């Protein structure tokens, strides 16, 4: 199957059928205070019956907007400014009437959204949801009732007839996503648009959902457009990939080609930034420097030019067209032999990376932080939740201890108990030999100085009313360290240390991107020169290219400052990347601990094994089979 865009010539390679969905020159703009934001700037692709197409990109690439634009589901501020979306080669959804669109939505095109927690109406039962979906397309009442249970059964929900009467909040996240899928498939649509269907889910659940989508697609013959930022998901589920950047398609190829031999510098960079479980232990991640372009003022030339190591003058002044390469894949880049040039550069930077300090060097010392039989119970008026149950851990000097677990495993409670935000219900916490389970004033002060924390959400963890300088200096002021002048100087140093300009101190957090904010959070944590740094999912809210930057920053800081670090994440591959040792948590307990590499290579506990198995690898399936 070939997609030729520059000259919309007759489809030579696939002449037998008209594509199910044919998108040409799609432009979408959003109204904002700062003028129109051009979120999608000329996207073209075709979708054949039964095909699974992945649209990949980081936040702001326009992938979700593209999906929403296909059946005109854009929010009020968004509008399609140009282009066409032909369904069956006949009906242009861009110009179709609302009535025609309603006929299409749900019946021809079903959608599954990212967040199963908010995508279902909390007031309607699951049965009612399914009923609504079928009612909208004229299915009569009797059939609706019968089919609702069938659909739940189809998506693998036990006791479907009974659960029809339950409300969404009575289902877990994964189950809700199954309901969403059942809804989307209720009227047996030809196209399923799945917008990040697994992003909000834990790896093990993610795996199940992807399998379900694949199976259903196969059995029902549904064509699937899978929107995701996760290369691993692409690798396991899609036949063809469309890589978006800055609202434009930069590369389009079969999954095997795109992941195996990427052509565009951005695709290459993206793949290099993804942490892999199968990479040799100690390999350094490669981030893509810089931030995505501002689409309120889109760059004249290639959108990636600012971050591209190969960018030349032409890249900055002229937009590269999609070139069709042999084999039907297309790429939008002025540089003809990007992969070759980049491989040379990449190996240089890989060589420059410092290997991780071996664990043996530090293991003989006494632990900096030791936790024994820690328990934490939350009591509300109605119920009692055991968040931590008999947790024992040790953190040695200069070591990074990774803690992995899915949502609800108690990992966040653990760190918050460690830094004294929660008080422990039972057990003991020793810091440098001192019992700080219930710290006195002096202990508290020492603890604040020595143990600092980096938070998950780069948006919520910075006080929006304070300047960056004030935020970074806050621990210093709180702990009475230094004079104002000294503090100012130190803030400058810290900002530069984490890769920001010292002038950032005068700005407010909202002026910064997610990755930059996370750097600010790290600078704040480093301010009182702590010996222990606790990172609570510091990268899980970040895009892959940025995630790699932050992971590298943390690794470097750890090595250079001799920090002891607790690194919490739900992504085993990331944890393996930075940790010396890993502890796996589940339901408030530590189920397995061990040296990072060994634990990943030879997991003992079945849960660890399941976790490892569920991590999707960005290696094409064909390549994996060959390996």
């Amino acid at each position, binding site marked *: 199957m070939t997609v030729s865009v520059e000259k919309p010539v007759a489809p030579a390679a696939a002449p037998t059928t008209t594509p199910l969905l044919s998108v040409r020159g799609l432009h979408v703009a959003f109204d904002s205070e700062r003028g129109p934001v051009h979120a999608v700037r000329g996207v073209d692709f075709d979708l054949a019956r039964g095909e699974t197409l992945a649209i990949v990109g980081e936040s702001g690439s326009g992938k979700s907007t593209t999906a929403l634009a296909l059946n005109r589901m854009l929010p009020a501020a968004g509008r399609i400014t140009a282009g066409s979306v032909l369904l069956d080669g006949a009906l242009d959804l861009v110009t179709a009437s609302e009535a025609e669109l*309603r006929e299409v939505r749900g019946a021809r095109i079903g959608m599954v959204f990212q967040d199963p927690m908010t995508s*279902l109406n909390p007031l309607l039962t699951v049965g009612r949801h399914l009923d609504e979906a079928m009612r909208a397309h004229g299915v009569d009442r009797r059939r609706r009732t019968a089919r609702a249970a069938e659909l739940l059964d189809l998506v693998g929900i036990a006791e479907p007839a009974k659960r029809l009467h339950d*409300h969404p909040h009575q289902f877990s996240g994964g189950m809700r996503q199954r309901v969403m899928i059942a809804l989307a498939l209720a009227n047996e649509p030809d196209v399923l648009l799945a917008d990040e269907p697994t992003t909000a889910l834990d790896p093990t659940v993610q795996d199940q959902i992807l399998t379900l989508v694949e199976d259903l697609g196969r059995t029902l013959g549904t064509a699937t457009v899978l929107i995701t930022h996760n290369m691993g998901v692409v690798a396991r589920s899609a036949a063809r990939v469309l890589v978006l950047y800055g609202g434009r398609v930069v590369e389009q190829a079969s999954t095997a080609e795109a992941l195996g031999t990427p052509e565009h510098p951005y695709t290459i960079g993206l793949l290099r930034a993804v942490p892999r479980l199968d990479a040799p232990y100690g390999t350094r991640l490669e981030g893509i420097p810089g931030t995505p372009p501002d689409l309120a003022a889109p760059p004249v030339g290639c959108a990636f030019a600012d971050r591209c190591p190969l960018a030349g003058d032409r890249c900055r002044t002229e937009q590269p067209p999609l070139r069709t390469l042999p084999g039907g894949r297309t790429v939008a880049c002025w540089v003809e032999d990007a992969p070759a040039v980049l491989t040379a550069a990449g190996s240089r930077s890989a060589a420059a990376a410092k290997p991780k300090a071996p664990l043996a060097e530090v293991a003989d010392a006494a632990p900096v932080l030791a936790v024994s039989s820690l328990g934490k119970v939350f009591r509300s008026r109605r119920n009692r939740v055991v968040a931590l149950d008999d947790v024992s851990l040790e953190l040695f000097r200069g070591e990074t201890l990774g803690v992995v677990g899915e949502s609800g495993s108690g990992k966040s409670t653990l760190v918050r108990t460690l830094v004294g935000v929660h008080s422990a219900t039972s057990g003991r916490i020793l810091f440098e030999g001192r019992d700080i389970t219930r710290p006195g004033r002096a202990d508290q002060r020492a603890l604040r100085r020595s143990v600092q924390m980096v938070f998950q959400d780069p948006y919520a963890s910075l006080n929006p009313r304070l300047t960056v300088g004030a935020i970074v200096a806050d621990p210093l002021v709180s702990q009475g360290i230094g004079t104002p002048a000294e503090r100012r100087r130190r803030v400058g140093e810290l900002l530069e240390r984490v890769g920001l300009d010292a002038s950032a101190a005068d700005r407010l957090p909202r002026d910064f991107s997610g990755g930059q904010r996370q750097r600010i959070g790290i600078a704040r944590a480093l301010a009182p020169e702590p010996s222990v740094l606790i990172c609570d999912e510091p990268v899980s809210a970040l895009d892959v290219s940025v995630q790699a930057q932050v992971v590298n920053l943390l690794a470097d800081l750890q090595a250079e400052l001799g920090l002891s670090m607790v690194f919490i994440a739900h992504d085993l591959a990331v944890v393996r990347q930075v940790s010396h040792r890993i502890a796996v948590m589940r339901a408030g307990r530590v189920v397995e601990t061990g040296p990072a590499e060994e634990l990943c290579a030879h997991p003992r506990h079945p849960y660890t094994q399941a976790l490892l198995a569920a991590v999707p690898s960005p290696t094409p399936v064909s390549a994996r089979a060959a390996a």
Partner: protein
Amino acid sequence: MTGYLLRRLPSAFGVLLLASFAIFLVLRAVPGDPAETLAGSDPSPAAVDAIRHDLGLDRPLLAQYASWLGHAVRGDFGRSYLIGGSVSDLLGQRIGNTVELTLGALVFSVTLGLVLGVLGATVKNRFGQTLLSAFNSVSLVVPGYVTGFVFVFLFAVTWQVLPAGGHESILADPQIGFQYVLMPALVLALPVSAILSRYVKDGIEQALSEDYARTAKSLGVPPRRLLWRHALPNALPPVLTALGMQIGVLLGGAVVIEAVFAWPGLGTLAEQAVTRRDYPVVQALLLFLVAVFVVVQLLTDIAYALLDPRVRLG
């Protein structure tokens, strides 16, 4: 649900008890003596003392409170100093009238609030929006006695289609009763409807921007059904909370509106009882208002639970 209610009840009673004591004490701090009020324009100290003794006002304060509370828990709120009859009977009747007015106003304000709110959320042209928001501002701002006067002047004096004031029980004669309640209830309802319509509008707009509305839209649910079946129910809980708060406003507004329309309700009774120190009436009245507040809060919670399965089934 039942358990939840049972847990709420003690605190509700606590508020009532606290209120009863506060009310009792505060009233005694008010200068002026009911016995002197009753003693007429040529009182002798003997007359005042006789009346005071008759009313039991010469007993120690705490003893008065204890005996009042003792009777009150059995539903006996004493006898009105001025009107003579049992306070429970008197209040029962007045409460009935005020409830009639308030319920009428409630029906109007909810209906108007919903209609205007839904219009506000759906009408997109600029002129319509301006018109709606102007109407809301005016309803919110113009005091009830002015609206009341204009209405009375138009409907009762000029056109003579509605009675200018007074009250006929809507239960005794629905058709006539309705005509009496129409104007005062509407006047009382206007500002409240303006507030409610804002909550409805915001709630619908909020609900329509939620992910689940997007889901429904993606399923081809028609806009009308999206609005009524999917968005509106989700918009209701905050409206309900606002409504709970507005019940107090309605009762308070009734004081003025009842005066304008000669409606024999709690408002006029309150004014009379307070200015003439008819303690038993004032005490019972204030306690009733606290009870209304407590009950409305409970009802709001219950309605919330009925509307929202997350609370109900939690």
